[in-house]
């Protein structure tokens, strides 16, 4: 039924890459897993707890770590993938140090970069003391201490949705999908850790697309008294007490709003990774209008790259949550195995 053991290179050691590598190795294939950072795990490494059930991120990290503990997998860390090309029956993967790996197939799982919040200059990230990103808030959760820069407990926190997503000004028209539910999850975590702290979410639309997300959203309001204001923050500044002052239009009330905050959290979106962009350009792989890798078909070829023997897995094709990323990686493995069998 299946081909004899083949060699597959997986470019990127985040959630998708680890899952794909594990699944391939489980089937008896030899896998070279290439990760540019010193440790596999991707963005998940920075996450404290996951939506929609507040499962500790460490559980998924543990699952993925176990997944790649397989003698068929060789993990290369601290090195990226520079170029992939098809030659004869082989796929030749060139690493950033010039090493060439000849393989039977490759899976690209280069993931995403978080939007650089400094590009939204009006929010003052990198300038005002208490403007942080959603990823930095996860660090605070992990440390067990959500505070302002001077170590005080914030009395009011604002979570700003769609930072770098659905925003023509930064050339990102796409929705990053997970930021809304991340904000809901983080708002609840703040309220759990700091019951005396007011939490406001400033949103354009609440896109609760996944199972149990809507329930989480409702719970955040009914149980945790999180406040939701539909409106985009136009600017932030600080007053003489170094407290943040934001301006926002409350579009449901139909009036402008000015509010003081102790901590402002920017829900940064997903963008095509820089490493993926370089790989696409070097390998002649197409990218879509959202600048992520363009797949062969939106409906039934969502892992196909257009380059024989090369497949996509996970958020290098579009923003997605961990559940969908794992499913997408498994689908990439299925496509890869079908290719190897049919070759």
């Amino acid at each position, binding site marked *: 039924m299946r081909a004899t053991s083949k060699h597959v290179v997986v470019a990127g050691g985040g959630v998708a890459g680890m899952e794909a590598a594990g699944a391939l190795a489980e089937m008896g294939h030899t896998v070279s897993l290439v990760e540019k950072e010193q440790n596999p795990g991707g963005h998940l490494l920075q996450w404290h707890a996951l939506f929609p059930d507040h499962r500790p991120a460490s559980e998924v990290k543990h699952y993925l770590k176990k997944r790649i503990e397989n003698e068929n997998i060789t993990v290369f860390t601290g090195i990226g993938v520079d170029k992939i090309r098809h030659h004869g029956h082989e796929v030749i993967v060139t690493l950033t140090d010039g090493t060439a790996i000849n393989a039977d197939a490759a899976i690209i799982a280069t993931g995403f970069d978080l939007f650089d919040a400094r590009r939204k200059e009006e929010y003052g990230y990198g300038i005002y003391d208490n403007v942080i990103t959603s990823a930095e808030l996860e660090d605070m959760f992990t440390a067990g201490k959500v505070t302002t820069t001077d170590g005080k407990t914030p009395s009011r926190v604002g979570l700003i949705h769609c930072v770098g997503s659905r925003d023509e000004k930064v050339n990102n028209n796409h929705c990053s999908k997970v930021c809304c539910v991340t904000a809901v999850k983080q708002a609840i975590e703040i309220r759990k850790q700091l019951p005396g702290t007011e939490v406001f979410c400033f949103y354009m639309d609440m896109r609760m697309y996944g199972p149990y997300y809507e329930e989480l959203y409702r719970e955040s309001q009914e149980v945790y008294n999180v406040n939701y204001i539909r409106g985009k923050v136009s600017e932030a*500044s*600080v007053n003489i007490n170094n407290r943040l002052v934001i301006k926002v239009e409350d579009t449901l009330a139909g009036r402008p709003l000015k509010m003081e905050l102790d901590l402002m959290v920017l829900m940064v979106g997903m963008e095509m990774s820089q490493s993926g962009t370089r790989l696409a350009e070097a390998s002649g792989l197409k990218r879509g209008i959202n600048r992520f890798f363009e797949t062969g078909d939106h409906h039934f070829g969502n892992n196909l790259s257009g380059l024989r023997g090369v497949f996509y897995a996970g958020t290098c094709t579009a923003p997605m949550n961990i559940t969908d990323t794992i499913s997408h990686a498994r689908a990439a493995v299925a496509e890869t195995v079908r290719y190897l069998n049919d070759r």
Partner: protein
Amino acid sequence: MKLEGKKRIWAEYQKDIPDDHFFYVRSCIRQTFFAGSEQTFLKIMRDDLGKDVFEDPRHTTCTGIGYHGDVVPFETIQTVVARHFALATEAGYRHIAISCVTSFGIYSEILETWKHFPETLERTREDLYKATGRTFDIPETISHASDIIYKFRDEIARKAKYNLADVSTGKPLKVVEHIGCHYSKMFPRYGVGGAEFPHVLIGMIESWGGDVIDYPERRHCCGFGFRQYLIQANRGYSLSASRKKFESMEPYQPDLIIANCPGCAMFMDRWQYTIKEIDSVTYGGDGQGIPVLTYEEVAGLVLGYDPWEMGLQFHNVQSLPLLRKMGIKADPARRFLAKDGSRLPEPANLING
């Protein structure tokens, strides 16, 4: 506040400001309400910095007020600006120095339009030629006059006779900088420092020894907006916008406001009188109002120019307390004397008059 973050943005928004040979275009409002500012700019450029600045008396209004008031069509204003460029071309100048922020915004908008819609440039060339027989080259650079003073701010600092500091305490003066909306909010790349954290006036304040106040309503419009003051019924909007800014900066007790826009300098000055009449409130640390000066006037003070020669007395909020703080000796009795010693009409209701 992390200054490094601001410096990163400032480094991203640097523009090409030429070193010399400018074709200077004046401002309708500034010539009318505080003409000394433009004279001061020319004196600094020519006498202190030794630069070549050319003026052509045939230069006209850019019609920006009419354009923003919806009585001058875009095609017309493009042709008027093209004529300005033609005058510069005929005089052999490639760098335009613009006194007015509205004009600067107009020039920026037109240049961007021509870049993205080349057919509008061709149409404008045709319109100008039919109307005047003139042709023109697109200038190599356009600089607002504040860009140019910014470029030479350190040279001015080296020649300084006074600093932006209180001589009695040695402490820096607390200075509010106010940037005209049309300077960089429409086209951030055209302004020094961009739209959110412009550096053009901050750079001057820092070089001349002052402390910059970053207050919550720093970015807010002064209220000048053409539709707001052209239509009398709308002037409440203008007043309320200025008042919002004054209330926001009040806790910082500013000594001075510097503006780079004709309308901002005028309205933030005049509305202080209005607010005093309506609310009996006078802003500023000492309750004596906050002087609102142009960057040229401040540069002139730093260089030791006579305040009354520059026309500081024609602002509603008088600058005597500020001059005392800076250690500048200026006889208030000379404020409204003409060159020949005769008395000029004295404005009523001055703050600190």
